[in-house]
């Protein structure tokens, strides 16, 4: 239990330092440095103090909770409330683990009247090879950008599929870059130049350089793709057309989502927003209104009102609405944990209080 105290105080210290640090650096960096790390160096004036990261402390606390809170706890009517409370805390930890390992997050932006059956990640990217068949159908092969991180000229990462007549060798993958035009010898050439990663994670634009190897002995083509480019890389191999593109990772929505109407209502005679509401059609028929605090829950996904625009739209202009989409199998677990913890605490402390009051009465 003494160890638990030390760990709790350490976690408190980290939380405090991590809060103050947010004044100077971005939430993302602070989160990485203090809360998702095992060790860190805290800058204290001219000194740097080594500290265990919150990840380490919390893991230790979890072990401590299981050993001290369940295994070694004397089980009696006396400690029933404590045990229940610890179970609740453990449930919270389970929820966090489930969310960490099995959740998907992203967003989808729809203009009024527009539909979508996918949503995209905020910051994960993928390389996609599109096979444009003559019959008008499109077949996509997507590879997560993270899988290309180590691509190099000496060790290219291959992207291939049975239906593709070529192999794509990714020779360079940059997580944040910009295209530069290099002029020389009468011709100009486009290069991708790496840029330091942005604090705002969604602002990083990746790019990749690759070669296309025709499997039937054709020539090799070199190409570039960049996250912010307006048109994909296009090529034709043996009468078939293909596109290569880098885009935010897409996930299918298990239902079609159509934005019928978006409304932003202000409080009268003020510019303070009273509500943001989106009327959406699920699978083109079921009408649902999504607003702040009232997300749509369907097929294991939760769709939230996240943003809207254009913010300077003239009255009556067509608006768009952005929804955050989250798949979280532990979505309702925190509520259960909360109820369990509340019951445990109330049981334990009420018991102690009534006993104390009774003893006080008998003393008086």
């Amino acid at each position: 239990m003494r160890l638990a105290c030390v760990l709790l105080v350490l976690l408190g210290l980290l939380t405090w330092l991590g809060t103050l640090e947010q004044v100077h650096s971005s939430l993302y960096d602070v989160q990485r440095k203090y809360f998702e790390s095992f060790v860190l160096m805290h800058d204290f004036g001219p000194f740097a103090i080594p500290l265990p990261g919150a990840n380490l402390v919390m893991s230790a606390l979890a072990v401590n909770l299981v050993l001290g809170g369940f295994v070694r706890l004397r089980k009696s009517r006396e400690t029933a409330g404590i045990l229940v409370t610890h179970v609740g805390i453990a449930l919270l930890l389970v929820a966090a683990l489930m969310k960490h390992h099995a959740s998907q997050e992203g967003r989808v932006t729809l203009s009024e009247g527009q539909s979508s059956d996918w949503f995209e990640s905020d910051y994960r990217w993928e390389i996609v090879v599109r096979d444009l068949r003559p019959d008008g159908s499109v077949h996509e092969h997507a590879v997560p950008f993270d899988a290309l991180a180590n691509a190099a000229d000496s060790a290219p990462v291959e992207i291939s599929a049975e239906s593709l007549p070529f192999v794509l060798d990714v020779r360079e993958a940059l997580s944040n870059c910009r295209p530069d035009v290099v002029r020389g010898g009468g011709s100009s050439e486009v290069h991708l130049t790496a840029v330091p990663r942005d604090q705002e994670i969604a602002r990083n634009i990746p790019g990749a350089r690759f070669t296309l190897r025709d499997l039937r002995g054709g020539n090799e083509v070199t190409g570039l793709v960049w996250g912010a480019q307006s048109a994909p890389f296009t090529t034709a191999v043996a009468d078939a057309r293909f596109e290569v593109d880098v885009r935010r990772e897409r996930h299918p929505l298990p239902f079609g989502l159509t934005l019928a109407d978006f409304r932003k209502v202000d409080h009268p005679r003020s510019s303070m927003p009273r509500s943001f509401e989106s009327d959406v059609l699920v699978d083109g028929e079921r009408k649902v209104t999504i607003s702040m605090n009232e997300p749509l829950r369907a097929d294991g996904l939760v769709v939230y009102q996240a943003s809207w625009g254009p913010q300077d739209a003239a009255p009556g202009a067509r608006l768009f609405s952005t929804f955050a989409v989250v798949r979280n199998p532990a979505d309702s677990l925190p509520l259960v944990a909360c109820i369990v913890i509340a019951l445990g605490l109330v049981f334990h402390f009420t018991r102690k209080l009534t006993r104390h009051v009774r003893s006080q009465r008998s003393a008086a």
Partner: protein
Amino acid sequence: MNSVLRIAFALLAWVSALPAAARAGDSTQPTSSTIQAFERLPIQEGGRVKPVASFARFTLLSASGSTSPVDADGRRCGAAEWLLRLALFPELAKDDPVLLVEDSQALTAVGLVTHDHKKRDRWSYAELTPVLPDLLDRAHAAQGIAADQRTPIQLQTLRIAESALTVLRIGRTLDFARHRMPLLDGTRVAALFPGRDAVGVADVIERAPEIAALERELAGSDDGRERGAITALWRNATELCADAQILAWIPPVRPVADEADWKTPADLLLAARSGGSASAEHVALLRAAEEVTARRTDPAKLEQALETLVARVESLAAARGELGPIGLEVAYQRLGLLGWSTALFLIGFALCALAWLRPRGRFVRRAAGIAAGIALVLLCAAIVMRCTIRGRPPVSTLYETVLFVTASAALVALVVERIQRQRIHLALACLVGAGGLFLANGYEALDGKDTMPSLVAVLDTNFWLATHVTAITLGYAAGLLAAILGSAYVVIAFLRGARVDRERQRSLARSTYGVVCFALCFAVVGTILGGIWANESWGRFWGWDPKENGALLICLTMIATVHARRAGAVRDLGTCIAAAFGGTVVAFSWWGVNLLGVGLHSYGFTSGIHRALWTYYVAQWSVVGLGGVVWLMRRRAVSSARSASTSSAADVRASSRAEEGNLVPPALPRAPTRSVKSATR
């Protein structure tokens, strides 16, 4: 005792300083029933319909930092009275010193002689008139600078300019009803008003369609006189309405869904000029306002005219279903329950102090209990009134957290008093009550904004406000109360040393621990509920936002304290020191994180809270330090007791006294070896 009572009465008199009744025979002085009628006038501001009394209160607070200004003759009046006088008699009210200047340097900078004023003083609009253009120029320049880069003088300049402009506008807000516009003799537009040589804004709005038609008809003609007459009429009317825009007191007549905005006379004029004919009800309202200004020097008729005006607006608002509990809000502003509550808490505390001096006076003790009880009831009544007015759970703004924290901390302290019957909890309840209400008052004055504002979209949910916000606020309340109880323990232990009453101290430590447990329950549940709410509206449970971290810090502190006590690492003294430290954690979470200016919860303008917050931090950390000293003293006492037990008889006596006084904690491991060392030093 006399002096205590005198102070108490003085406080009562101060709190109950209601607007003085009108002096007989003064025709520029509205009667108190006129003022009461005026207070009810419904207006729409900041997204809601409210009585003009609330608008007056917060306008005055932001301009003068007080709600009971002094007029030029040194007479105190209420906020609504000030506003009414300013609107009706601007030529007199411009001499009322209501513009708060925190630092006269802002005025010397524009060349005003400030010798006859204090550095921080209230100035009248008339005194500032000579430098107003310069002041406005500077304020304009200061506006171009980023908010956090402005110097104190620039901030002052901005504030003074803003307040002066508000006073100017309110003074002119009835111009549209006060003045008549001359008609050019023999013109066709004059013929629209037969037998009149001058017309008011209401007339123009009423006949606007005809005037507009005439204007169109004459558009092609080259009759400059005719066209000029119409242009002049529009221009004059617009000019007279220009400053009426500060108050929207005209409800749209037809209950149309997209007509949520109430109108000002300027809006009516604009609408009428662009072709819409004004409704009869609106013209009647404007005429009622004209009647009010015409009767301003006849108190009896003024009251009648004002009653008519207010009744008309009320009936239009009621027809739209927007009048709501406006009467209750007027009553809330008029009753000033919080002032009475503050006074009673102070009286209760004074009586507690008295009871200490005369420990046998049961009457005094009982009176203290009654005072605290009534104070708490009044505070709760105020909170319930606010809930009814807003149709919301008790806490939805930072200001309301202060009221709720105060009420619940005082309530918990009184309940503990019922259980423990040690009197100290009663005294601390009074202290918490009075302190909390002073904080509320100070914050209200500093903010100078409506404390019942409309809520932004994400907060518009009574379910989460009732659960998460209430729970976490109860956690704050209990955490702060535990800190005060713990501090009392430490301070008493330090001051009384060996003479301390063991039984009482143990009881105090026990109640501190109990309140820590209470705080733990609500802080933990409230924090998790907050996560669930965040997951419900943003799709993430936890985001390491400063406010979330603050709540987590409270939980961690309380959990660590409880575990340390259970593990035997700390005893009574340690628990109380931890609770005292916990108070600073609560203060950090409640106010401190908002001062950081980052994250999702930086919703309050709280920079003025800085000093108060740091004072509290330092006070509480000093208590923690003091606790360390007490701990060291006890160790010394233990060691000297042990080493002395083998020496002279006198020391044995001393050490046994020390045991009596509970200087010796029940067990101190490792004491023998170290105590020898410290004894030899």
